[in-house]
């Protein structure tokens, strides 16, 4: 339940490798030595570890097309637990090295194997593995934030704080907590002498007016093929994020999710550890199970005691009968040009009020656009600067008919070849939709402002919101062969 060593490296596709932080835990190493006995492999010096790690991650020697150690086809379970073959002086394996990467930063640690080394224990029997993953993920969030693009300066300042952060969360190799994301750890407010124990995950106490903010975001993904032999796919998942400012050491709050009558049940519910109890019926519905009509369909009550920082209270998936936007995309190759025909229909159940809605039509493995002679029934069409992408801005609203079309021809005669993609060759092409609809969910799930209960003496301000957004929303050209995106539709 401890880690022997921790490394943080940065690199650019295997080059410009630099070790940003390293920590070895001598006492855990001492235990590792006793536990492994004769099969003990010491952790080599950092440079060696890094090289081995890059090889195992497939990042070493980026200019060489084939390196036997790196590209061997023999299947070993690699991620999340890598195996580093230490050459000298004591030959052996370092296992299980956990590594997670985000952009240019890779974090790795070596959990202690607290079981006999031979035969190799199952990964699932080592608690230190899941703890190591949690620690790495926590450190990653601390260093890079949850945003998509890591900020180099923030990263550097956070790295400088790491020694004092580790003193709190993992002083001797046994992870106790993950660092609080973003903000530097604030000194704790001394607690008034009370009988109630303060949760270890709560760094201080809130003073002042109570405020609870509950945001429900549903995300819809889709793969539409416009092809009878292939079923279109879409799925929806939702997350409920809370920010609670409530007084007291262990205040009680309850958030209730409700579905409209005949709404399909929420499935695969996952909850934050601060949820105090769960009704077993809430957990029964599962997306991988046969759909059971008699399943529980709410209300879904989540009693919890909130931490100070914003957190994800729960998440769910849902099966909705139709996709919000149904599209059809047809391409025809005509001698020197490509005939394009697109139809997008907004389903009637969806509120016709977007924050934004855009359709992107990329064209790969071709020259740049020559002549673009395309008309749209609504919205505005732009050609990207690189001349290989059509951006169709649909604005805030679909027309009354709830249907928009695009027709036209494109010739490819630009001076330079456009981007390549091994997947989208010839007529294998897609439209990707980006949209966000405020104040609605596809599943119909909602958090009523009045259903949020805060058991506190003072008056509270409660804000709830919901929205629908798209992610990986693809409409494939029906005249080309689209890649299979899920086995379920084949089986």
């Amino acid at each position: 339940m401890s880690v022997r060593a921790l490394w943080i490296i940065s690199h650019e596709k295997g080059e410009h490798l630099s070790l940003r932080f390293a920590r070895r835990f001598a006492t855990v190493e001492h235990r590792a030595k006793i536990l492994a006995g004769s099969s003990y492999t010491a952790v080599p010096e950092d440079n060696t570890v890094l090289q081995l790690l890059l090889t195992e991650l497939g990042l070493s020697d980026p200019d060489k097309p084939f390196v036997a150690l790196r590209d061997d086809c023999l299947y070993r379970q690699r991620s999340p637990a890598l195996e580093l073959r230490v050459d000298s002086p004591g030959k052996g394996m370092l296992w299980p090295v956990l590594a997670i990467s985000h952009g240019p930063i890779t974090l790795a640690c070596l959990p202690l194997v607290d079981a006999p080394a031979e035969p190799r224990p199952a990964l699932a029997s080592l608690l230190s593995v899941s703890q190591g993953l949690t620690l790495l993920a926590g450190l990653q969030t601390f260093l890079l934030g949850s945003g998509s693009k890591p900020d180099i300066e923030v990263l550097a300042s956070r790295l400088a704080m790491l020694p004092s952060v580790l003193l709190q969360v993992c002083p001797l190799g046994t992870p106790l907590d993950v660092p609080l994301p973003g903000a530097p750890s604030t000194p704790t407010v001394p607690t008034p002498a009370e009988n109630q124990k303060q949760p270890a995950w709560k760094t201080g106490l809130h003073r002042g007016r109570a405020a609870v903010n509950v945001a429900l975001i549903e995300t819809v993904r889709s793969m539409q093929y416009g092809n009878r032999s292939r079923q279109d796919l879409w799925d929806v998942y939702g997350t409920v994020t809370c920010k609670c400012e409530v007084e007291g050491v262990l205040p009680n709050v309850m958030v209730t999710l409700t579905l409209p009558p005949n709404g399909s049940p929420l499935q695969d519910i996952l909850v934050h550890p601060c949820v105090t109890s769960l009704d077993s019926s809430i957990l029964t519905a599962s997306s991988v199970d046969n759909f059971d009509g008699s399943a529980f369909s709410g209300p879904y009550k989540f009693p919890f005691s909130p931490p100070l920082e914003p957190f994800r209270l729960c998440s769910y998936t849902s099966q909705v009968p139709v996709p919000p936007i149904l599209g059809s995309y047809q391409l025809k190759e005509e001698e020197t040009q490509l005939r394009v025909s697109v139809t997008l229909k907004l389903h009637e159940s969806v509120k016709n009020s977007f924050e934004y809605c855009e359709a992107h039509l990329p064209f790969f493995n071709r020259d740049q656009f020559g002549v673009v002679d395309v008309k749209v029934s609504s919205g505005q069409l732009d050609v990207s600067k690189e001349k290989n992408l059509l951006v169709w801005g649909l604005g805030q609203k679909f027309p009354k008919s709830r249907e928009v079309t695009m027709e036209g021809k494109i010739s490819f005669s630009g001076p330079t070849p456009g981007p390549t993609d091994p997947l989208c060759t010839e007529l294998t092409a897609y439209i990707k939709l980006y949209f966000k609809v405020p104040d609605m969910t596809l599943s119909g799930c909602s958090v009523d402002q009045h259903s949020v209960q805060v058991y506190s003496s003072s008056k509270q301000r409660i804000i709830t919101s919901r929205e629908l957004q798209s992610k990986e929303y693809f409409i494939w050209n029906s005249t080309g062969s689209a890649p299979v995106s899920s086995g379920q539709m084949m089986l």
Partner: protein
Amino acid sequence: MSDIWTQRILSFSRSPSRFLSGTTAEGFLAELLRELRDDRATYSLKVLLLSPLCESPSLLCLSDLLGEETALELMSVFNQCPPKSVQFRCHLLLALTSVLVCTSCVNNRSRASQDFLDLLLQISQDSNDLHGDVALRATACDCLREMEACSPGLLSQRLELLDGLRQRETSRLHQAYAGLHTLVLRNAVYQLTQETGAGAEHLKALLGGNTSVAWEAELDLMNSKDDSAVLSSLIRGPMGSVPTLQTGPDCKELRAVLSSLLEESYLLTPLSQAALLHRLTEVVAMVPGVSPAVFRAQLLRLLGTSEVCLFHSILLMKSAFTDSLFSAEDEAFLLQRLVVLSQHPLLSPPEKLFYIDCILSFPENRPIGCGDDALPVLLTPRLASVLVPTVFNDSATLLARLHLLCLVYLEEEDEGEEEGRGLGYLYDHLTSLLQIVDNGGSREIVVTFFRAAFLFLSYFFPVECFSHSLMEELCSLYLRHTHLAPHFINLADHIQEQLSESNWATEFLKALQGAITDAELTSKDLSWHLKMLARVAEEGEIKQQSTVNFLSHIITSSSLCVKGDWRLGNFLLWVCRRLLVHPGLDVLLIPLADVLQHLACRYGDTDIRDHARLYYTLLTTLSKDKLARVLSQGYGEGGGQAKKLTFSCIVAESEGLTSLLTVHQAKTIILKLVEEPQTETGSGLNQNEDNPEEASVALEQYRAQFDVPGFASEIPLNYQLTHSESADSCFDQLFSIRLHFSLTDDHYEPLGDVSVPCVFRERPPPSVKLRLKPRRPQPTSLHASAIFTTQDGLSWLTDLPDVHVAFRQTFLPLPAPETWGRGSRLSLFDGLWDEMSREEPTGGATSLFCCQLQEEALKTLVEKHFLPYLVSDQSDKEEIKVLFFLPPQSHLLMRIRSEETVHFNVATDNWQLLPHINSYLLTLTSSQEDTHT
């Protein structure tokens, strides 16, 4: 100053070994400690200075004693440190813990470690927090926990104290106490299970803190028993057995402690909560008196958790308690959850991969099989279908899913269910990956595809329709992307290695050979084709005619030879090289020889021509077996299938071959020639009396013999060829020795080489007969050297010690006609003597040598040295006549008379011999004198 230290600490942590090679561990440690005491150094620097002690204490404290001293130093630094520098004080505690644990001071209960333990306990109980920070207390608790973890049982006596501290604490610090308390509890219970006769009473006493002195001693003994067992997790799935403590149903004290800990578990961070649950699971597993149901209240809260470590602790609990805590329904639910989590859009890829791994080793209530990769019974193909791989997955996920699904459909196959659509899907998936590779996918996709192909084949190679069509797809992929050859070879190698029962790899290589030799040739593919064909040629079962035809075609019909590219030439030779050792070489002999000859004559690069010529010579002169032996050496050395293919390897290979075919120079003297012991032959002359001829007639007859060319012109010298004392044992058996001699002067005709079949150290040495043909009768030395072969096939050149030919060795007995008897010889002697004594300028000379010798001694001397050359009768005591013939045509005559002194009257027809005979006689007589005085 601070910058220098920062740099030094940095370079220490980057590479301790390099850093310490520039200084000594003791020296560096002393410097660190001195600087830590220095008041001028800032505390942030001092924190940095502690890091080598925290991270690598055993590199700095080379002995336990040094560890003890260092710890005492650090403790005094701690005591003198102002309370407000909390960070530094915390790091000091960490450094102390590291030093004491890693130098075994804690295990030996040394004085410093006892003092430190007291210090930690004191800090952890100091709830006043006068100095405003709980950080020090938290650190002290973690140090205690780590010391207990490294030295289980250390705090067993303090259980009650720790329980009290934990219960009273209301700040966040209760987590630190809870972690410490549960670990100590777990270790204490473990120790009791190892105690024979321990039971409920002992447990109660332990929890109550009133342990008797009697078993305090026992506990200490226990401590040294088996360190690794007590450190190991006790939850090891169906195969693990847990030591138990028989308490009967009455252990309410333990139950109280457990429920108090569990009730507050909600207040802990997920990481600490998971550790606590795991430790308590171990405790309950060891004490059958407590029902696992104590955990039930926590389960519901945890089953829905999004935290990977919390869900993991539930799985571990299930592994420990199976159906005593989890019903069949729970089991189905957990598995379903795992499947959901394995592909949940909100989880990170490593977490999902971990969950897939958990499915593979799902702790079933009633496991059927318990091998690796035994899937849970409840994992139906339908349930698993959400995990089928797609081209949108990242590589690791794709492969992990493919692996899982292979196992699922393998079971389906076994159960003979409908010829799986699932398997068909997996195959389709593989071909769509292949498409992406075909369309120029990135290196990562290529590697992933080949791993997927290997995985698929390793499970489904017997399903012919798939394995066969995959082979075809791969062949055509290769022709379009020849630069992927190393991947194809790697795949073939691994399939061959892992699936010895299948001949897929051979078939595949054969198909590739067909594809290559039939294909339209482009020059950019050629090097890859050659690499591939070289691999194909390794297969004894694959006929190689088409490969040879291909080679012959490309070298004759293209400008390849004219261009003379060295690399391509090497690839060509590489293929030829493999063909040379192919078992079907007999059929290939002539066309291959043609190819090699063509290369040797026409190729535009000298190096390639030379090598081709060498191969050609080897092919045409060596037998097949010998050829295989010669070429198989240095082949496969240094392992790695793939390595064989790298370019440098061709060079290395040719170096290996060179070493086999060139002659090595031995560093020491291995062989020597030793003079063979003389076998006494007597004078060997015809003892019959005959009619003595007139001296002049005898002379004439005698001289006539020399008209025959080469008559009596050689001196035979007999030697034995033996090992020199210093020769290495690898030279014990030598074969085909060829001795070569060179002259140091021009007194002799050059000598021919001498061959010896073998010299074995344990056998009698073979004799070597040298025939020296003198131009002038002079002593000489010969330089000698030998070339030979050792058992491993290497050839060596060694110098032998010089062979010295002494004056006496140049003598021959009188080469008189065979019919002559003693009389004629005496006549000849007299005739010669007269001629030499004449004072004419013929070059003749006489001389007198005198010495003191007893009669007996003289007799021995004659018998020993002059017998073969004796002309007079042996019984003739008055005058002994001796004649040495020295080829080519010199004579030395002696009349020896014994008077007061012995007179050696010497006459010769070559005055230049006089100094030699003089020294010869001197040596002889002096040695004779020696023996007689």
